[in-house]
């Protein structure tokens, strides 16, 4: 099945929850909806499922208009952030429940339940009830139910948000394999850019109810088309600064002045916004053309393998805050003066309207 949203809008009480979104999702794909809370991820999923009816626009399944169709009439499965299972039924019966509703033959149910359980590594827990399982297993059970149903469309709304970090890591790694084995359209909502990157497939970045960019995940990450797209898909948050280009030099509001080389060389004079991802902000000069920005350290955070150095530059008016992510342990004393470097070939330049004016050519993906 392919699912096509045609200029969907949803207005509730005067506020736009979804604003003119068009999107086509193909069979057998993983599609990540990425955006902060209230960006419209859940609203969009509910519209896809048929739980809500769009204020305007159409939902097409394989070219057939299903806009007014109730969720019961469509073959849809949903997995939520909370672990939703039937508490009194065994894991086996939980997974079997959608098939029982469809009145499938007994042996078919058994076959499908066992296949789904195997895929989610629940074979040895089939006789238990969900409350006897760990959180990770409970969520596996909910996912297994969605898989066993063989729905055309499987919607997962931040399914890992309530799990421990390590369990999340483990399931995240398994999900693409599980999804690939079924051939449905998977839609996966998350607030975490890293999760989108790990799941692969395609990503739609959302912001304030609007679709910002949609495409293969790596492409959306490495080649954002607008400031908003880049900002939504960056963790740690994108470093953003306004620059002014005058002839051969660029000026930052904190007083930094640098020759306009690299991507900046070919720009017309004027004001731009630059976006630098934290790992592209370096503590050592990478090459001759690098822009140096001097500032003082606010805080350093270490994760063992990497360090996040928070720096602010400029006296007061043009105060800018930066976060640099560097490999290794860099314990810099707060308040220390430091130089941070940007390779002018590795930044994003946005025009004043927020559209990409220039971006890195070789992104290495």
């Amino acid at each position, binding site marked *: 099945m392919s699912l096509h949203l045609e200029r969907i809008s949803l207005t509730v009480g005067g506020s736009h929850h979804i604003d003119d979104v068009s999107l086509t999702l193909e069979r057998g794909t993983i599609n990540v909806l990425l955006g902060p809370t209230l960006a419209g991820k859940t609203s969009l999923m509910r519209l896809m499922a048929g739980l809500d009816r769009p204020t*305007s626009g159409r939902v097409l399944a394989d070219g057939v208009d299903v806009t007014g169709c109730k969720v019961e009439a469509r073959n849809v499965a949903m997995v939520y952030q909370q672990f939703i299972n039937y508490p009194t039924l065994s894991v086996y019966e939980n997974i079997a429940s959608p098939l029982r509703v469809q009145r499938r033959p007994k042996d078919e149910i058994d076959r499908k339940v066992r296949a789904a359980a195997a895929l989610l590594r629940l074979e040895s827990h089939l006789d238990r009830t969900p409350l006897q399982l760990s959180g990770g297993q409970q969520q596996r059970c909910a996912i297994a139910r969605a898989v066993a149903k063989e729905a055309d469309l499987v919607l997962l709304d931040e399914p890992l948000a309530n799990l421990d970090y390590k369990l999340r890591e483990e399931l995240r790694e398994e999900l693409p394999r599980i999804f690939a084995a079924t051939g449905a359209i998977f839609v996966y909502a998350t607030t975490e850019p890293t999760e989108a990157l790990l799941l692969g497939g395609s990503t739609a970045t959302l912001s304030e109810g609007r679709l910002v960019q949609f495409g293969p995940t790596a492409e959306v990450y490495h080649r954002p088309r607008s400031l908003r797209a880049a900002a939504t898909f960056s963790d740690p948050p994108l470093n953003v600064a306004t620059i002014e280009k005058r002839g051969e030099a660029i000026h930052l509001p904190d007083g930094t002045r640098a020759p306009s080389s690299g991507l900046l060389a070919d720009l017309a004079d004027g004001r731009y916004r630059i976006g630098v991802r934290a790992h592209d902000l370096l503590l050592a000069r990478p090459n001759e053309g690098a822009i140096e920005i001097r500032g003082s350290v606010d805080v350093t955070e270490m994760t063992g393998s990497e360090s996040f150095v928070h720096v602010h530059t400029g006296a007061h008016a043009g105060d800018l805050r930066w976060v640099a992510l560097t490999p290794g342990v860099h314990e810099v004393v707060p308040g220390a003066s430091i130089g941070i470097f940007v390779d002018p070939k590795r930044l994003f330049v946005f025009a004043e309207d927020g559209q990409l004016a220039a971006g890195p050519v070789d992104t290495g993906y």
Partner: protein
Amino acid sequence: MDKPINNAAWFLILPAFAIVLFNAVIPMMTVVNYSVQDSFGNNQFFWNGLGWFQELLDPSSELGGRFFASLGRSALFSAIVLAVQVPLGIAVALSMPRSGIALALCLVFIAMPLLIPWNVVGTMWQLYSRSDIGLLGWTVNAIGIPFNYTNSVLAAWTVLVLMDTWHWTGLIALLCYAGLKSIPDAYYQAARIDGASRWAVFTRIELPKLRSVLLIGVLLRFMDSFMIYTEPFVVTGGGPGSVTTFLSIDLVKIALGQFDLGKAGAMSIVYTLIILAVCWVFYTVMVTPENKGARE
């Protein structure tokens, strides 16, 4: 762009409409019909327009005086009942055990009166309060306080309020208990850390979180007590004199006692409108502040 609305769906709610029509609209219309006519027995009816309503709402007329007196008694009864039962229900809920067998027993005891039919409750209390053979009435008299609900206004009211409280406080208590259960532990822990007194915990955490269940409780109790009929009818029959003749009792007296269907019809309609108005106020209070700030 918009799809035409699927009109077939309307047919599906026809049965519901039919039921509402038969058990609400048609009886209501009969009452409306009576309220604008006068009857002199023998099923003879004469058009009286809004006459009954004018008389009813004019306190100086005989009907109006009677109406406002029983309306006043009903309102007073509801006010007393709410003033006693709501705080008492909250207090019971707060002092209930948190778990285990004690909780189960407690819930059973609290829920028990709720299951007893109105007329049985009335009979129970009628016997219980009698000054000659009733345990309560006899005891009170025995300790030297004259207590006879057949001739004392205070005694009659006391019995009715006690009876209603016994019957229905459990409802408020159960609602509040459910509300209290839903408050996460973290709130209590935070309050302890903040050094809040028990009173502050009650006013700053428990009461605000109980707000919505309490509103429902108050609404239910108001409607029930304002429309109470069976119990006072069984216990006091509206007396002594007419001191416990509530609106509902008076209504029945007029309609079935005197067979003044026109007056009774007008009275029923005003009665209904009062209850609807109060419910609407409650509903508005209940709904508005919840929505405010929900999506910001």
